[in-house]
């Protein structure tokens, strides 16, 4: 099997199947658990399939095109670092699934829990296997979102919601910084693919934008890995169920940040800026959090701060930036994941059994759960760096690296001192955890009677602790190969010579270790005075401070929204027009300066008269808009003048369409006008009037200037093709019609579809719409009681066949002379509606088609069908054909398949206009019958 497909299948499987537990939960908790385990197991199997090649030193790549023009592809990479993390993610994931089955209460159906967990795991796998940095960012954001859901899993608890929100705000904000950083990095390197970026380290470091790029990417990594001062979200995320903490805060979520450091180290590392920023942040986090951990009374709180502290240690190691410190950093990632996962699980067991995690009350557990206690003691010793355990090995390597670091020659004592103090604090808090929980007398006032947990709940802890021991005692036989490939992939260079062994002789690191152990015991012995001293310090409450800032922002956002979105359409329109004015003004004044020369077509008196009529109509209509009938009439005049303008300026098709539409619009307006409340609209306030006049003035003036500028700019048309090809390609001499039904037929199809939607929506709105018919108009004149004046109805009837004939004629000649489906459709529908108006409902209902949905479908089907017919001839959609046909008597004439398309347009237009206008007309019938009832 192709290994590339295998690689794609790893996150592919996880993403495809993450909903499986949710779907299977109706078969019970066991089914959901098995489904989750099966998904993770398959991912792990796929990872292991690829492992031999990685151990052979290959970097495997896989690529699927996604959005190549933006440099975003689904490209994945499996190298040593990816392999290490994938194994951790899947392996610990499996254990967490088993553990959670026992941890969560039996009333929980588990489907939701496992599905979110799988989604999170899929995203984590995506991060560590991404070859494309943009893709990595997508997965990065998915981990932020899914971890939000996991932390807030017990969403009925206030603590959970606050903790989840804080985690999302901090990591999400960091994600934004990371996005900016990655965009800069891609800009510098010219690609978002890691293979390119990792090879372009020198180019990146020498670039002027290196510093901002580095800072932005580090912000992303530090927020995710809870580095000082962004660490405060992690202790608050402890409100998550313990399996979530065991997973997110040992092997996955928080490790994503240090993963990013490891991944991008070859591209960004090796500079002073990297050294000081990364190692400085790491060192501060390491010591500060270790000290804080000592004073936490909550078991999970202690573990949370110790996690931050260990992440600080790993960050510091990457910051020290020697080949061996990188190796040590990668090694500590493995070790921390193993012992911290087991410690969180043990803490969960204690919480589960005791009902509380307060170390001032949970005491003497060794007697009650000796096996769990032994396991936890071993894991805690590993955390403290006791020999024979895995934590000792990486801590020794860390101590060795702090001694004689090249950057610290002047103050060579400082770094070992910091490291030793951190080591002492780690010993002290580990000792506190062990001594307080498992010994220290008898428990105080526990809600439950604790005893050993179920056999299989302990199994994951047993396995992890066994790993602690195996790695600690036989490092060369267990972890060495994996560490070698992972470190080589991190360094992108051959790894330095080092020896994974317990005994290196009496050297400085060993002295530091012993000093740390002794110092830690000493600090713990002094805990009484230390706690008393801590209790009188002013409390630090990052959570309430965060909440205060958060509420401030939320309130400010609400105020902004209240100003913009106050529910007034007038306000929206005013804002919209103002914004358009700003944009238009900016474009107008910043546009390229072209040589402007206004052409002047001769105007003639007729043009002045037309302009006068247009001004009269539009300004009159605007000034007199309260006199509705008069305003409609004046606007109608404007429409007619516009049609005349089209006639004069060589656009006969537009003139015809405009005329027909004008008729329809007037009928529409009159129908609407009939129902409006009789009372006149109140006058606007002076300030409102001023604002609107100002907007209108600038909009009108701006449009006039833009038109002048456009007309004066040099003109280059793109229509040459259409003029050339209309007759040979489209078989018609009316170029506008040929464009509509042939060259740009697809656009027209879209447009008639929109029209059909208008008809359907109008039909739905008119359904069961009841309005009361007013007795008189806004000027107080009573409406005529004569429904259908005899003179009008008699005059109109003979007009129908005449108009229909005209419309058929217009339709048929459309391809060659002004006309076509649109115009013919409008003429036909106006003719039908006029019948309707003059003769009333009863007359019309017997004659007009009522099934508008059917007719609309027919029209669209005609248009689409003729388009698809071209497939039968192996041509693209909507290719037209035309030819000459000769009929007896009539003679030879040209027939184009585009005509059928035009027929579809015609049917849709007729249906739309008739549906809308006759629907409005039918309202009056209902209104009057309503009146009769009243």
């Amino acid at each position: 099997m192709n290994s590339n497909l295998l690689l794609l299948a790893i996150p592919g499987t996880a993403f495809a199947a993450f909903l499986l537990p949710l779907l299977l939960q109706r078969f019970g908790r066991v089914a959901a658990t098995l489904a989750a385990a099966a998904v993770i197991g398959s991912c792990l199997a796929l990872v292991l399939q690829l492992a031999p090649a990685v151990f052979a030193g290959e970097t495997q790549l896989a690529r699927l095109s996604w959005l190549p023009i933006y440099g975003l592809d689904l490209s994945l990479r499996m190298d040593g670092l990816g392999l290490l993390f994938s194994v951790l993610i899947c392996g610990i994931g499996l254990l967490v699934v088993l553990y959670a089955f026992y941890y969560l209460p039996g009333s929980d159906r588990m489907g939701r829990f496992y599905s979110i967990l799988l989604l999170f795991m899929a995203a984590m796998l995506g991060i560590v296997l991404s070859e494309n940095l943009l893709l990595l960012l997508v997965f990065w954001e998915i981990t932020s979102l899914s971890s939000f859901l996991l932390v807030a899993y017990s969403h009925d608890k206030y603590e959970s919601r606050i903790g989840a929100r804080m985690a999302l705000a901090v990591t999400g904000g960091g994600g934004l910084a990371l996005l900016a950083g990655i965009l800069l990095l891609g800009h510098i390197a010219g690609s978002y693919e890691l293979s390119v970026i990792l090879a372009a380290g020198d180019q990146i470091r020498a670039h002027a934008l290196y510093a901002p790029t580095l800072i932005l990417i580090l912000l992303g990594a530090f927020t995710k890995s809870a580095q000082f001062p962004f660490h405060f979200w992690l202790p608050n995320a402890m409100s998550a169920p313990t399996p979530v903490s065991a997973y997110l805060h040992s092997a996955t979520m928080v490790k994503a940040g240090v993963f990013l450091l490891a991944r991008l180290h070859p591209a960004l590392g090796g500079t002073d800026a990297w050294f000081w920023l990364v190692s400085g942040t790491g060192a501060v986090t390491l010591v500060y959090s270790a000290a804080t951990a000592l004073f936490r009374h909550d078991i999970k709180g202690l573990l949370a701060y110790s996690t931050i502290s260990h992440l600080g240690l790993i960050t510091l190691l990457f910051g020290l930036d020697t080949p061996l410190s990188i190796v040590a950093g990668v090694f500590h990632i493995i070790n921390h994941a193993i012992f911290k996962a087991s410690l969180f699980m043990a803490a969960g067991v204690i919480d589960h059994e005791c009902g509380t995690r307060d170390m001032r009350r949970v005491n003497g557990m060794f007697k009650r759960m000796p096996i769990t206690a032994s396991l936890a003691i071993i894991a805690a010793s590993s955390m403290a760096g006791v020999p024979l355990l895995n934590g000792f090995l990486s801590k020794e390597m860390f101590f060795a690296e702090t001694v004689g670091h090249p950057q610290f020659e002047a103050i060579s004592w400082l770094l070992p001192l910091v490291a030793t103090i951190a080591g002492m604090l780690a010993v002290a808090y580990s000792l506190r955890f062990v001594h307080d929980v498992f010994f220290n007398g008898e428990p105080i006032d526990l809600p439950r009677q604790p005893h050993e947990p179920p056999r299989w709940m302990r199994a994951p802890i047993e396995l992890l602790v066994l790993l602690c021991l195996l790695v600690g005692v036989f490092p060369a036989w267990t972890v060495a190969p994996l560490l070698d490939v992972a470190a080589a992939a991190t360094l992108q260079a051959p790894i330095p010579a080092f020896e994974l062994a317990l005994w290196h002789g009496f050297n400085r690191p060993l002295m530091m270790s012993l000093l740390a152990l002794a110092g830690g015991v000493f600090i713990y012995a002094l805990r009484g005075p230390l706690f008393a001293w801590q209790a009188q310090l002013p409390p630090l409450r990052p959570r309430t401070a965060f909440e205060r800032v958060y509420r401030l922002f939320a309130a400010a956002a609400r105020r902004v929204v209240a100003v913009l979105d106050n529910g007034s359409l007038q306000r929206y329109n005013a804002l919209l027009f103002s914004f358009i004015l700003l944009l238009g003004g900016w474009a107008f004044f910043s546009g390229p300066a072209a040589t402007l020369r206004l052409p002047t077509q001769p105007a003639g008196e007729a043009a002045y008269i037309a302009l006068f009529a247009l001004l009269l109509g539009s300004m009159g209509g605007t000034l007199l808009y309260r006199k509705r009938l008069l305003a409609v009439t004046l606007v109608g005049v404007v429409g007619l003048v516009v049609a005349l303008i089209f006639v004069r300026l060589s656009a006969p098709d537009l003139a015809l369409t405009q005329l027909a539409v004008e008729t329809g619009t007037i009928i529409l307006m009159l129908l609407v006008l009939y129902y409006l409340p009789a009372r006149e609209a109140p006058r606007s306030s002076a300030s409102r009037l001023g604002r609107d006049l100002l907007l209108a003035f600038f909009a009108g003036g701006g449009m006039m200037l833009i038109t002048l500028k456009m007309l004066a700019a040099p003109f280059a048309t793109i229509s040459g093709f259409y003029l050339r090809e209309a007759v040979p390609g489209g078989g018609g001499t009316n170029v506008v019609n040929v464009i509509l039904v042939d060259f740009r037929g697809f656009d027209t199809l879209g447009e008639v579809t929109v029209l059909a939607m208008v008809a359907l929506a109008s039909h739905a709105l008119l359904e069961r719409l009841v309005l009361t018919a007013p007795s008189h108009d806004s000027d107080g004149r009573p409406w005529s009681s004569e429904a259908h004046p005899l003179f009008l109805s008699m005059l109109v009837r003979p007009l129908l066949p005449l108009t229909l004939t005209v419309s058929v004629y217009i339709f048929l000649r459309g391809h060659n002379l002004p006309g076509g489906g649109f115009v013919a459709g409008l003429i036909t529908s106006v003719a039908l509606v006029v019948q309707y108006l003059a003769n009333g409902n009863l007359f019309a209902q017997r004659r007009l088609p009522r099934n508008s949905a059917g007719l609309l479908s027919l029209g669209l089907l005609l248009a689409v069908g003729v388009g698809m017919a071209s497939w039968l001839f192996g041509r693209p959609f909507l290719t037209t054909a035309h030819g000459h046909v000769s009929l007896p008597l009539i003679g030879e004439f040209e027939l184009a398949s585009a005509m059928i398309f035009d027929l579809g347009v015609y049917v849709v237009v007729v249906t739309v206009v008739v549906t809308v206008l006759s629907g409005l007309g039918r309202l009056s019938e209902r209104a009057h019958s309503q009146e009769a009832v009243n």
Partner: protein
Amino acid sequence: MEVLLSIAIGVLTACGVFLILRSRTFPVLLGLTLLSYAVNLFLFASGRLRIDAPPLIRAGASYADPLPQALVLTAIVIGFGMTAYLAILALRALSESGADHVDAHREP
């Protein structure tokens, strides 16, 4: 001719914008109609103004730009569809709220 058309477009826009900003549905409909006239004329003018040159292929003639004409033709019809839809929406709002204010719920 160019100057006259620019004035016409400017005035139509100004009137349209002013009417769209009114508080009752009917002037908004009128304003929309006027504004669409302005926009159609503007689009049409982007093909420049030609007299006696309709885009109908015949021997030895020169032609106005057919592309803006095709665009405007559909724009006219769509504009009608939109006006009709808004008109019906206004009536529906009138029937449900009893007022023809554009923000029906804040009827004085």
